[in-house]
């Protein structure tokens, strides 16, 4: 099992879609996932904009369905194995994980992103003690408490609305004077009496004793500094690519996302990328699965040409 024609690094929507397509095309396919298959949907409360689910679907349920669909067509899925490096070797690629090496003729990188951190004093100390990057995971600990969400995009607003199920009050702290989030989400948030917006403001530090007690805020327009007492802070300020395993191998953009052409090819023949880890993409579930299908098709063509060459 440590050799395959195609190895897909990352078992989220993009990687599992690649696996569905390549396994159905009878390509010997292995997916290597650092945790459990499913990717970002596992940590997403509810998905409303994925076609075919008019009532929406819970993230974990969709993740589960993607996984079983990939397995149904014969893809092998290896779990709990973080990939540390992908190297070009004689006959293809070596994929080094924490526990060993795998070899393949072609690779699809579908490793997604991780939450961007605030990088302010107190963030690291209080992670798990009031600072969280996952409302679905930790929201229930804040029943009748006061929390803040920092960010102004779709995730920040979706999760702020989700947190109103538990918290008595949710502040949304945003450094601009308007949101980037979809209009439909904005309208819901503005109509929610538990949500209060704090505009043009950044967090300078997170303070407390054993747990988070207050945020030091600074208004960017007035320069005014203030204290906001909260029990928790949820950070949704964007994402960074999980591309470190190929940083010495493929061309990345200035933010570390993998550069590909429209066929998901990187600058290295046989190495493809799909989903959120790819540069210049609209990072959505629907686009990730589209990428995954294209990458599998490109990998299939590449493997076909390899055989032809021999």
């Amino acid at each position, binding site marked *: 099992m440590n050799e395959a024609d195609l190895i897909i690094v990352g078992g989220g929507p993009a990687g599992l879609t690649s696996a569905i397509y390549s396994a159905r095309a009878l390509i010997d396919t292995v997916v290597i996932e650092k945790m459990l298959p499913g990717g970002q949907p596992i940590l997403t409360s509810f998905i409303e904009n994925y076609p075919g689910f008019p009532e929406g679907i819970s993230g974990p349920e969709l993740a589960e369905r993607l996984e079983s669909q990939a397995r149904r067509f014969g893809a092998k899925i290896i779990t709990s194995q973080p990939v540390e490096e992908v190297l070009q070797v004689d006959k293809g690629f070596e994929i080094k994980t*924490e526990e060993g090496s795998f070899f393949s003729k072609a690779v699809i990188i579908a490793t997604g992103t991780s939450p961007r951190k605030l990088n302010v004093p107190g963030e690291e100390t209080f992670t798990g003690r009031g600072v969280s990057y996952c409302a679905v995971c930790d929201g229930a600990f804040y029943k009748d408490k006061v929390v803040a969400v920092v960010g102004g995009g779709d995730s920040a607003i979706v999760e702020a609305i989700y947190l109103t199920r538990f918290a008595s009050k949710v502040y949304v702290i945003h450094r601009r004077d308007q949101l980037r989030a979809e209009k439909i989400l904005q309208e819901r948030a503005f109509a929610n009496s538990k949500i209060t917006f704090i505009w043009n403001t950044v967090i300078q530090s997170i303070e407390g004793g054993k747990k988070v007690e207050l945020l030091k805020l600074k208004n960017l327009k007035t320069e005014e500094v203030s204290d906001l007492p909260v029990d928790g802070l949820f950070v949704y300020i964007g994402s960074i690519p999980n591309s470190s395993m190929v940083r010495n191998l493929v061309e990345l953009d200035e933010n570390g996302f993998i550069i590909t052409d429209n066929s998901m090819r990187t600058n290295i023949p046989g190495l493809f990328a799909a989903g959120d880890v790819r540069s210049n993409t609209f990072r959505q579930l629907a686009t990730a699965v589209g990428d995954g299908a294209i990458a599998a098709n490109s990998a299939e063509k590449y493997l076909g040409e390899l055989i032809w060459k021999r």
Partner: protein
Amino acid sequence: MSLRNSYNRIKAVDSSNFDSEVLNSTIPVLVDFWAEWCMPCKMLSPIVEEISQELSDKLKVVKVNVDENPDLATSYGIQAIPTLLVFKDGNVVGEIVGYVSKKALRDKLEEVIG
């Protein structure tokens, strides 16, 4: 390794037996604070089960459901799950918050219990 797998092989403890099972244990104890609805907990539980078998001679592993035992969660300041606490002679000697890989967990345990 599906997310629907139940987390059955690890002994559940609650406030009635926490003292005898954890605080008064003669060997170090790894306590997994978890809940049914917590996806990262479900990702971590197969790893905790494997570790409990591999280190069964020197480490005891138990789980605490935070929904059923909010008192225990509060007294140990649990605000995110999964949280793993390592107890030695009744004291917390190690803490891991969030999902970790098996290797990272093994390394951490070796550091605190030797």
